[in-house]
């Protein structure tokens, strides 16, 4: 049904407050009514789009275009300065793999906390902890303190947790590039599998992957939606724009 949306974004904008001095933040809190101590930098401006349930939407754009900020807003980590958004269902954000882990605890213990952050109850965690271990597939390391893990192993555990969060909406920020080939394949398989039942919003710089996976692609540029629509078309335009700019930069030299 077309009325069933999963994500709806209405005129979302985000301004960061840039302070010349760290302590100006405190001054702003205390005396903000009388004086402004910051400059505003709008990283997102009037972003509008709707994602239907079951859609797989990719987001492209150059560094600093506001992709991560947009995802952070949708996950509820930071609040938009203006506009509003709605999300239906439970979200599992895969933003920075393994950032919330404690090196002194074992993979299993960290997995329990990670799952609790995503909103799983203890019973649910008990039920799926073995599946998480199997998905991460790091063998006896799962029972070792995480400080001895390699980066790829941490990413495996982190992704395994998100994969078992029983979410309705998966929000992925270019995070799958650290694992080895086997694990990347596994993640991609999982995402394709998830796409059959859930909604996906994914930021990536691997355009071929997006073209294969997504039903629509959103091109974000300087904080506004430049184009949204058919993956092949949008990606072609995006590539052309990148190329044109590269040509210009070379020409300037």
């Amino acid at each position, binding site marked *: 049904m077309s009325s069933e949306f999963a994500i709806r974004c209405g005129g979302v904008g985000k301004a*960061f*407050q840039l302070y010349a001095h*760290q*302590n100006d*933040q*405190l001054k702003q*809190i205390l005396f903000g009514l009388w004086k402004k101590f910051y400059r505003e930098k709008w990283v997102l401006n009037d972003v509008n789009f709707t994602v239907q349930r079951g859609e797989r939407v990719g987001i492209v754009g150059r560094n600093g275009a506001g992709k991560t900020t947009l995802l952070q807003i949708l*996950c*509820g*980590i*930071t*609040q938009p300065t203006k506009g509003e958004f709605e999300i239906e269902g439970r*979200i599992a*954000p895969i*933003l*920075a793999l393994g*950032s*919330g882990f*404690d090196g*002194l*605890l074992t993979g299993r*213990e960290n997995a*329990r*906390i990670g799952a*609790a*952050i*995503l909103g*799983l*109850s*203890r019973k649910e965690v008990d039920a799926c902890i073995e599946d998480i271990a199997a998905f991460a597939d790091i063998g006896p390391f799962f029972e070792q*303190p995480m400080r001895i893990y390699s980066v790829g192993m941490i990413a495996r555990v982190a992704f395994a947790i998100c994969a078992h969060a029983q979410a309705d909406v998966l929000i992925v920020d270019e995070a799958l590039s650290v694992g080895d080939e086997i694990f990347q394949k596994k993640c991609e398989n999982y995402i394709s599998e998830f796409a059959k039942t859930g909604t996906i919003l994914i930021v990536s710089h691997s355009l071929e992957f997006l073209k294969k996976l997504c039903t629509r692609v959103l091109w974000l540029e300087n904080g506004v939606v430049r184009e949204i629509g058919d993956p092949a078309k949008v990606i072609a335009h995006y590539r052309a724009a990148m190329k044109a700019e590269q040509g210009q930069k070379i020409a300037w030299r």
Partner: protein
Amino acid sequence: MLASIPAVYVAPFDRAWRNRELIRAVVRRELISRFSGSALGPLWAVLAPLFMLLTYTALFSITVPQLSAGVTVTDYASSIFIGLIVFNLFSELAYRAPMLLHEHVNFVKKSIFPSETIAWTATIRAFTYAGVAFAVYIVFRLLTAGSIPPTIVLAPFLIAPFFLFMLGVVWFLMALGAFTRDVAHIMASVVPMLMFATPIFYRIDQIREISRSAAVWLRFNIVGDYIEMLRDLALDGNMPNIFAYLGIVAVSYAVFIGGYQFFMRYKSVIVDVI
């Protein structure tokens, strides 16, 4: 029944209840990670207060200063120990709170982590250690004095409002500490000052004999009031003044709600500044 209470007074509990699984998991992690890698492990939670208690008892059985005049050495040591349990709890949280959000920056910025629960986990952790120390006190008291006043069963009625008071303090310091690191430095100089304005090594009654007005001023120190009342219950076997008790419960609750609202008001800004 609950509907008749305005939402603002129960909102913090409601939020905490919804995040109870997370709070439990993180508290477990903090308790485990504090002792993992040490040979004696959780035994340290018992040993640390035990050494403290023995040191003070030894010290005062040798010196017996004027402050302890009129009481036995073990009574005086017990009195100090209760004072230190409560004050250490306060100072540990007061030192740690301004840095809490900086410690958990990855949680706060990179996952859907309800940052107000950090105050719950830090406070629960501190109260767990204080609870172990209090158990050491009870055993010590039973061994040295042979009995413990029955009023000690009322101690939870003091601990619960003190818990809420500390939560409010932690929320407030956590939010302030996120904006400027000066708060941590301020606490480092204010807490030792507060220590001498708190009846730890002396009792309010002794001050009252010296100066009535000083004793009145000291009553404004909530931590000190809690210490005095806990001594009433767990050492002297007296009932605290009911009006004084209701007074500090009201103040503690106001601090709790005020701290929570302060934190929640700036929560969204904090994510962008740390």
